């Protein structure tokens, strides 16, 4: 019984970075109709920036570095949107998809040129290093911090999308791009903004996993998080942020349970779930069958 709480918190904590990556992906898909492969590159660069900028083990330094990572990657994201995606938008989704993949490879290469191939590790911030016991269950402090942070980001995104005028424009563009254009919404600027938000989130997610795993040149590292994020947005319904949240948390917990119950099967749960979903509910949890994009309802 006590184990259950541990499994739950670990699972949620694993789901958080995936949710953060996936929420950016799903927003970008909603507005640009691109599955942005380059997100894996953004993620990796976020992690690398953290390893370079963090100093000491204080909490402030850690979250400062996380913020710098997010902002740095945001700049990379804005540049890539202007240079790569804007020219490709008219060419259709397949070409944009390949453009995103090209960008992904280029960013991975760039990361190696800048940071080299030696794996880097980062310590947990001192204040979050330990664990505590609740009702007999051992819970890592960093895991709790992750869950809280995930909650903050989810609420922040919800407020941004449903309560601000920017959010309204984003929803309008993703609902009907042509109509939004006719209404005088500057669609190009909204696209760049959404891309910037998505890239920022990817950078933050990358920075947050730095203490949990070793950061290296990382095709493996970036696919470890990018593929689950892709699966999460398919399971949650393309374009739906709440869908991404629910799917990421559910899959994180499921993976954590499977890791405990049947370690041989760990790593497969995402693939199994996506297969089941595509068989029985191809439009995902929160998607509608006509594929019109719904966000932040």
């Amino acid at each position: 019984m006590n184990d259950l709480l541990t499994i739950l918190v670990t699972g949620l904590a694993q789901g958080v970075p995936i949710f953060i990556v996936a929420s950016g992906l799903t927003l970008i898909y909603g507005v640009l109709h691109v599955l942005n492969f380059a997100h894996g590159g953004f993620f990796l660069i976020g992690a690398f920036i953290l390893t370079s900028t963090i100093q000491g083990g204080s909490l402030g330094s850690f979250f400062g570095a996380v913020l710098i990572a997010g902002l740095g990657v945001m700049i990379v994201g804005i540049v890539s949107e202007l240079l790569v995606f804007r020219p490709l938008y008219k060419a259709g989704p397949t070409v944009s998809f390949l453009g995103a993949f090209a960008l992904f490879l280029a960013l991975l290469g760039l990361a190696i040129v800048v940071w080299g191939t030696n794996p880097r590790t980062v310590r947990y911030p001192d204040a979050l290093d330990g664990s505590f016991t609740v009702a007999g269950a051992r819970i890592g402090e960093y895991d709790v911090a992750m869950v809280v942070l995930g909650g903050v980001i989810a609420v922040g995104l919800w407020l941004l999308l449903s309560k601000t005028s920017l959010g309204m424009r984003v929803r309008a563009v993703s609902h009907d791009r042509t109509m939004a254009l006719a209404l005088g919404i500057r669609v190009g600027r909204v696209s760049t903004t959404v891309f910037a938000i998505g890239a920022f989130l990817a950078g933050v997610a990358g920075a947050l996993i730095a203490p949990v795993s070793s950061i290296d040149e990382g095709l493996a590292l970036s696919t470890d998080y990018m593929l689950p994020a892709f699966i999460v947005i398919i399971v949650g319904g393309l374009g739906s942020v709440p869908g991404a949240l629910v799917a990421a948390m559910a899959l994180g917990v499921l993976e954590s349970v499977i890791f405990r119950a049947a370690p041989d099967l760990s790593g497969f749960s995402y693939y199994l779930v996506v297969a089941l979903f595509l068989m029985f509910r191809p439009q995902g949890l929160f998607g509608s069958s006509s594929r019109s994009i719904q966000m932040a309802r």
Partner: protein
Amino acid sequence: MTVLERLPLVSRSGLHVLIGFAAVAMVMPLLFSGSQLFTWTTALAWVLFATATSVLFGWTGLLSFGQAAFFGMGAYTMALLYERDPEMSGFVMLVVAALVAGVVAALFALFALRTSGAEFAILTLVLAQVLWLLTYRVDWLNGEEGFHGLFGVKILGGPLTSDLQLWYYTTAVVGVCVWLLWLLSRSTAGQAMRAVRDDPWRAAALGIRVRRVQVSAFAVSAAFSAVAGALIAQGQGVVSPGMLTFAISGEILVACLIGGTSKFIGPVIGAVVLIWSQTLMSNIFHESNIFVGLLLLVIVIALPGGFVSLPGRLAGRRRRRPAKGESAPPPSGAATASDDLVEEGVR
């Protein structure tokens, strides 16, 4: 070759494809030897891989990000067969590898094609990733170790002992396979694939069974990709999980795109350009990823039709400014809409 193509007998039977490969097979050993000839051997295996990928990506209009799954499946099938029976003929292994990949691909496609476009691409990527994970989790697939010693695979009674023998053997297999694919592209089945790519909804209205065409294109593509994977395995003597990675799936799409998929020869050119530039560039850039990525970016943005579209574009520019969006696929809205229609229509 263009003169040859005009002769009716030649163009109908694709004889010029075979003659072309025979000529290449004879000429290359005169110009290259040692490691350079080996690079050409690798490039030729990739020519087959790229042409097979083009069946899906270029002819049928299905974007697969998991071609490495079938490439690797071919290599692993050959390795497992060799482990079980070292006396088995290499040709038999190739056929078995093609069959295994073809059947797996057909089964996978039957359910994966419930989705389309981007989701389909992700599903194919998931397939490759699952196989990659399996190589680490299943004991008899040897994890990171993989398999060694595939040089010993017997062709016509004995193993291939020199680079030259490997070259002739690879060229022969690739030549025959590409020829078969050429025949397919000229057949009614090939025309049906292009019809499905251009407008699946209209193709369905014309009585083409869209789903069946897509599934068979997937199977054919997988089978020939597996042959290419097995050839690479035999040439390098080693099979490892590296052959199943996402990088391979991406690179083969890069090859198709560099060459351009509008002409049969496009992926052939693309594969040769990719392998040679990777080999040459690996001396300059420590890691070839950045180069492949930048090359692809330039092609995608500046020359979306690939190298084969270059002559046409140049000619067009001389006559008039090319009409905008001439070579570009239809805008996203239209494409998604028709995808949806077909999905519902065929189900």
